[in-house]
């Protein structure tokens, strides 16, 4: 240290250089962040722009016709809806109860570590391997054949780990004192969970479940071999038009539809492909906004 500095608080050259570096780093990392986001926003706008000629209420509500060169996407849309619905009906109870187990019952032992490891690995299994599993287990072994139920089961297994993880986190955010107070009133463990823990964490759990809706709706690989089909005849009116797919029927799905019309099929109007992609992105954004809204609501409502 030199002793010539008269005012120790005066900025010296080194500090000024440091400040410059700091600013340079700040703005370059900011630029990197936007470099990730801006192209994607631009692409989304481009997709919507190209899809504009096709986007209409009829596009959503008409069935694909004339080998998918006319009509709309009603069949795939409602197929995806049922796929998501059935897979959630299967995955949500199992996932939420598993989250309850991990946060409320599990002790800190090797079994719990093993379960946590399994959850992490289940989340990391490639989606196409889930598809193979669905084909081997549900379609052939359980004899479901390729159908909505088999595909939903496959997607359910796939969405399970994230539901478990988000449920666990939501439950962990409920303060321990709430439980202790309830136990002191003489309540059993399950009573405490049912009346105190779950009601206080329901928004957090729902946020996780809603995010899984978006994921389940967009997946293609797991349903490729477990039930999705290129096109099927769907009734135009009445109850059959609303519920065109039974659990044992093969079904159309938005993601599979987009894959087929953009790679396998000829003569599909350009705007139809862009329209399908834009509808999928629109759905994903809508579902995500819902979940973000939930999170904001949850934060505002938190009482502890």
């Amino acid at each position, binding site marked *: 240290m030199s002793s010539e500095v008269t005012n120790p608080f005066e900025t010296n050259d080194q500090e000024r250089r440091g400040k410059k*570096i700091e600013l340079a780093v700040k703005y370059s990392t900011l630029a990197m962040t936007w*470099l990730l986001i801006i192209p994607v926003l631009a692409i989304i706008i481009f997709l919507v722009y190209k899809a504009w000629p096709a986007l209409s209420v009829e596009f959503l509500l008409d069935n694909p016709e004339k080998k998918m060169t006319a009509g709309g996407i009603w069949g795939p849309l409602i197929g995806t809806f049922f796929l998501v619905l059935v897979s959630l009906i299967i995955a949500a109870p199992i996932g939420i109860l598993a989250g309850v187990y991990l946060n409320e019952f599990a002790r800190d032992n090797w079994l719990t570590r093993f379960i946590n490891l399994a959850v992490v690995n*289940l989340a*990391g299994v490639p989606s196409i391997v889930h598809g*193979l599993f669905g084909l081997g287990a549900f379609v052939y072994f359980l004899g479901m054949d390729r159908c909505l139920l088999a595909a939903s089961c496959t997607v359910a297994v796939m969405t399970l780990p994230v539901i478990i993880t988000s449920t666990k986190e939501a439950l962990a955010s409920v303060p321990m004192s709430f439980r202790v107070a309830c136990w002191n009133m003489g309540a059993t463990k399950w009573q405490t969970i049912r009346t105190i823990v779950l009601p206080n964490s329901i928004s957090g759990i729902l946020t996780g479940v809603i995010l899984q809706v978006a994921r389940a709706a967009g997946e293609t690989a797991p349903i490729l071999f477990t039930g999705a089909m290129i096109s099927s005849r769907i009734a135009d009116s009445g109850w059959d038009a609303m519920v065109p797919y039974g659990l044992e029927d093969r079904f159309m799905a938005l993601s599979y539809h987009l894959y087929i019309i953009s790679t396998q099929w000829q003569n599909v109007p350009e705007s139809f492909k862009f329209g399908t992609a834009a509808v*999928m992105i629109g759905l994903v954004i809508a579902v995500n906004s819902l979940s973000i809204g939930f999170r904001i609501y949850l934060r505002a409502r938190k009482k502890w």
Partner: protein
Amino acid sequence: MPETTPDSGSGFSLRRSIQKVVDFSEPAIVGLIHLCGWSAIIFVMAIFYFVFSESLPAITGLEEGLDHAEVEKLDMVEFTTSPKWIPESAKRPTFGILALMIGTLSVTVLSMIIAVPLGLGAAVYVSEFARGRSREILKVLIELLAAIPSVVWGFIGLVVLNPMLVDVTGEPVGLNILNAGIVLALMSVPIIVSVSEDALRAVPDSFREAGIALGANRWEMVYKVLFPAAKNGLLAAVLLGIGRGIGETMAVLMCTGHSVNMPTSVFDPVRTLTATIAAELGEAVRGDMHYHTLFLIGVVLFVFAFIINLTADLIVKGIKVQGNE
């Protein structure tokens, strides 16, 4: 919070009798909760069992080869070292996955070269420089990247990136390693950003304060204090990104050009392990060698993913243990 205390009035109460049934069934419900808790283990094992058992005949030998008298068996040496993947050849089908593995590897490596610096930069900005509302908005936008379905990413590569690459690079077709690498980079960035941001934020503020107090500027603090302190988490972030890259199916199926090829430059088309399964399983006849071999590729992918996730998990656990000390 729902009212739970039974009303003190005498007489029949529907609510109280429902309550009784619910309380009475507590052991059953607790049992169910335990069962669901173990479900993750059950499913991971089931996935391995079913995928492995469908691939087993390829390893042990097919009893009823179509018109072969002798037992048909997959040549393991050829499987792992041959770059030739000609499953439907009438004369002599060849099942070599070397080219497919190289395809997966090259696309993943390129995507990581793009995604890791950008992801780390974004994580540093979001965690250390951004404040309040702008941080929230950036996080939401990055989460949005994660939510776009992979088939839509594939479509973007096909119709947006493909013509752009043709214009820029002058190659006749824009479906190649570069295209898939860029798409995959954008897909794996969200997980890299969120895991490394968590890792950076897990470093106690006292570390930052100590760094600043010693006269470091913010960059020196990030580079010399935070990165070493959070290195395990950052490594785990990269590993999870790699895992995502290896497992990604639809986007690489649509963007790589889909030709079995040993690539010599990033402008070559390739084919990946995942894309091969997705494209060919629909046509493979159940029970023949092609079908079982595709499941064997599934086993290979499962094992890769398992190793990567296990390593990432152990590394993250390592941080937690350190943090407790």
